[in-house]
């Protein structure tokens, strides 16, 4: 028996925060790749402390639904899951290259394959591109378009900026978009000045966040000048300084994210190749989720 636990942040205040986690879990349940799939949260229940005892399998794959390596993936999750002998060095990561490590949970004696976060997996670049397709409604989007990948910045965690730059570099190298730029909320280059960084008339802006919340639905739209007041909403695309901004909302709501979760588990040894094919085909052409 093998189980999948998706470890996400959740929220005490925002009911929508857990929704992407549930949606991706359901996509994976539907393909039957694991005997059990369970969502777990830092701020909601089941907590990381108690989730392992709710699953029956002796072998558990834990995939953090976080964007970058850092405080949560290195300290909070392993500590709360009671992963004996965990040492961040086991991941041997440069900040974006963690794959997995196998440990025993002292609470339950289960074998836990503790995976790197979804946000730094290579296939996340595909999700960003797909998010751009979803928001423009164009599966070939790229030509004549700029792409901005947006993140927090280094204020709280230096790896957070690394993850943004990592995917921006990969997508730039693919040559699909005319221009690709990493932008940040709390440092230069800042998302406030998005139009300064692009020649292209059309700019797709994809925030690398797991769930929509007040950063993606309030701060970033207002900072970019899509709207004066987030409560009144904004156009997609919106005209700003002679550019058309296609703002996608959090990348984590893209159905293809379920694929990244599975890829993480597969890299850690889970037997889910057929499921990956199935999830890719069911989530591949999904339309935007209504940003």
């Amino acid at each position, binding site marked *: 028996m093998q189980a999948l636990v998706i470890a996400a942040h959740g929220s005490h205040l925002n009911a929508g925060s857990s929704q992407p986690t549930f949606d991706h879990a359901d996509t994976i349940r539907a393909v039957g790749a694991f005997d059990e799939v369970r969502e777990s949260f830092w*701020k909601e229940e089941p907590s990381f402390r108690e989730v392992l005892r709710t699953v*029956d399998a002796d072998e558990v794959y834990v995939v953090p639904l976080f964007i970058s390596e850092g405080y949560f993936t290195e*300290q909070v999750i392993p500590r709360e899951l009671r992963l004996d002998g965990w040492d961040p060095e086991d991941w041997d990561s440069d900040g974006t290259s963690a794959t997995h490590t196998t440990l025993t949970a002292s609470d339950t004696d289960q074998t836990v394959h503790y995976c790197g976060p979804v946000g730094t997996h290579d296939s996340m670049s595909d999700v960003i591109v797909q998010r751009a397709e979803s928001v423009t409604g164009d599966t070939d989007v790229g030509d004549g378009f700029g792409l901005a990948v947006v993140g927090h910045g280094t204020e709280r965690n230096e790896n957070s900026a690394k993850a943004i730059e990592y995917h921006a570099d990969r997508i730039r190298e693919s040559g699909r978009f005319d221009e690709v730029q990493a932008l940040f909320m709390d440092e230069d280059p800042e998302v406030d000045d998005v139009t300064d960084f692009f020649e292209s008339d059309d700019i797709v802006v994809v925030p690398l966040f797991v769930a929509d919340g007040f950063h993606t639905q309030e701060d970033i739209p207002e900072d970019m000048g899509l709207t004066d007041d987030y409560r009144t909403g904004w156009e997609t695309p919106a005209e700003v300084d002679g550019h058309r901004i296609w703002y996608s909302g959090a990348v984590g709501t893209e159905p293809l994210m379920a694929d990244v979760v599975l890829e993480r588990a597969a890299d850690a040894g889970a037997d889910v190749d057929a499921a990956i094919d199935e999830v890719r085909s069911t989530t591949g052409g999904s339309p935007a989720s209504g940003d």
Partner: protein
Amino acid sequence: MRDDQVAAAEDAAIDGIDFDGLRLSPAGAEYHLLIGDGEPRSVANDELGAALSAHADYVTNWYYWHAVAPQKADRWAFLRWVEHAGDLDVERRYAAMGDGKFARNWGQLRITVTIDADGERRYGLGHVDDADEPETALDSYDDPLDARTLTKYDDDGHFRPLKTAPTLQTGWQFTDLSGADLVTAVDFFYPATVTNWHRERGTKRSDAPAGRAGAERHASQEGELDVSHWRETMARQTGIYGLIETWDRGEGHEHVEWVAEACCDDSQCLKRREWQYDEETELDAPGGEGEFPCREPCSLVVAAARKWTKLESEESRTYEFDLTPSEKEQIEAIIDAVADGTADEIRDADVYDGANRYRARFLRAKLFDEDGNLSGVETGE
């Protein structure tokens, strides 16, 4: 009863069966068979099938618990609890389930169970307050995953950050769940309550399923509930919650009494708080009467404690306000109404209640200055 159920029992008889009043042990060319409180008798090998068939309820009961019900020890024990298996014999349980008479409450959940001629249990799940509602008045669900949505909002549409708050929405029902799906749904409504309840019952009970893969691991999980008390839980916190530890200054634990009274009272949370200040220091605040235990301060309590740690680092000082006796009592009534969540229930024209909106607005108009200071007294730095 189906033939395959009898055949399965015959197969198992080779190793002996002793379960819920069905006792069967091999003895050479025959078996010793004992049903309930009856007389033991010997049955020849080739007559075993016929002998078992005469006790259909015992056979289908054995079959359900070994071949149908989920075998994870806590799930299994929970479903046994649902039908009072620890207290009632097979015949009484079958009679009660046949009449649809069993109902158990689990927090605000009401669980019912029925049984068919093959001993297959089907479970119903609903809100305790909807027990007397006609089924047609309730929205029906059959996928346990839907529980995640039902548990998200209360009846007023407010988000419920604490799953075990006594604010579960009403108006829904699951009428036909398998045992596995019932436990899944319960775990979405009240995550980890079944497994922690099971740990707490632990060694008191010996009704764990035997002879399954992983049984050893599960056996190791039974026994004492691992309670993590306030002090060790706060000592474990890091990041922005690291500072909560500084709230414990070795000057008593009154502050934790206040936290427990504020957050963990049955009026706020249906878990029964088992954590204390520390291993030696029990709290006086009532832990509650709930069926399932709380083994450590939850994330909501931790987040609130961080705020209180900051607020409680302030020194008190003396302010002077002039209030009439009724105004003093009115302020107390307003705090009570907010703390008890009853402010919304006070009728618009009920000016006899100090927490009535007009009364509160009058008090504000009279006592606040233009900056919102009570009696014009500035808060100060």
